């Protein structure tokens, strides 16, 4: 009969306990989600950066893009030396517009510029360019 004597209090205490347990459960899940979110955000950001950098600097079609530069200039003005993933170009007698086109094109190709020398000779330009990828 003791339980009956306190049945109202037991009922309220039980409900309170349930509410408290639910609150703890919610709080634990919330903090766990926040931590997991943070970890995920960092992981995804690192992953995306890796993929993006690899895509840019590890591009497999770099040589084709460089070949297109070669085609922009008459062959008489260009000396082209390629060794593996290294390229050296010597360009002579470039008109300013030709020089602009070549430089713009080269800067848009994801290559590592090792040396770039542009020298004005009267009204034309000579250019030496070495890069790798």
């Amino acid at each position, binding site marked *: 009969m003791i339980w009956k004597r306190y049945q109202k209090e037991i009922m309220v205490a039980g409900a309170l306990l349930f509410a408290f347990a639910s609150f703890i459960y*919610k709080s634990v*899940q*919330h903090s766990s989600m926040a931590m997991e979110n943070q970890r995920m955000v960092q992981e995804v950001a690192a992953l995306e950066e890796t993929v993006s*950098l690899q895509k840019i600097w590890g591009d497999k079609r770099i040589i084709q893009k460089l070949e297109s530069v070669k085609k922009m200039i008459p062959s008489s003005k260009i000396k082209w030396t390629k060794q593996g993933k290294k390229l050296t170009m010597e360009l002579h007698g470039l008109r300013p517009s030709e020089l602009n086109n070549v430089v713009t094109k080269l800067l848009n190709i994801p290559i590592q510029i090792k040396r770039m020398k*542009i020298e*004005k000779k009267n009204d034309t330009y000579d250019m030496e360019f070495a890069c790798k990828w």
Partner: protein
Amino acid sequence: MRFTGNNKSILLVHRNMRPHTSDVAVDIMLTPQFYMVKKEKLPIKTRYRAQKIAPSLFEGLLEKSSTYKFFVYQEDDQWVFIAYDPEEIAAFLAQKGLSKEKVGKVYFAEQIVKLLDRPIMLSETEVLSVLDDTVVVVPASALGDIDSTEPVLARPKRSVSFEYSEKVLLNKEQAMVLAAIFVLFGLIWFAEGLRYKKNNRFLQAKTEELYAKYPSLQSRYTRESIISKYRKIDASERKKRKIIGQIAGMLFKGVTITLFEMTDKKYKVVFSVKDKSVAKRLEGLLKSAGLKKSAGSGPSEIIVEGRL
């Protein structure tokens, strides 16, 4: 006198009852000696409303010093109002050796008025009987010969119970409201917790999907190795291209580049300028771009050098 109920015995409580000796919990049925009854035909539809007006019906009939409670139910087309004093009843039961903790449900003899087909002997002098459609206690002598066998009675549907503590913090309604509020909050929080848990699973699935797309990047070592390699290249090459872009932006009428040289570590630019005003403007542009004129510069030639 006891009647066998569904699970507990029903003890008929009257003034001349014998002391209760058993420790077993019982339900009790009060005789009219412990309550006052009124039957009224009222235009009331709900028991709640009837309960509300019950005190006014007994106004002037009850002792002001007592704490009466009211039990109301509908019988055919009329309402039955019963006023009782739980404290008085509890005190009487205690005298008879029955503490209120041992009492389960409390019924009123009036509730069985339709089932009381013959008088019930309470003691040698008193009888429980029905007079004018109301259960009453009458002297035994008034009814002549009475069958003293124990009657079998149905248990009434409704009952009341004692408040156990004198210092009750919550009554039943308050307790139920509080419990309902707590349960409601509990359910809301639990549902929210479940939602967070599912959200975690969703993010986990997203990561797994990304790794499935790029399996080579699953290893942290591989990722870090790739990042450290390409970050260095990326920063250095972006800087080179930025400087080339800045220098190209400084060409305007009267300025030409006679020499530009760049390696992995340094760069050098020689600008040829037409006159002093052009030189001044160029110097301003260099300054705003954060580039410095080299010491070897002359009046018609500005040299810029820097490290990468």
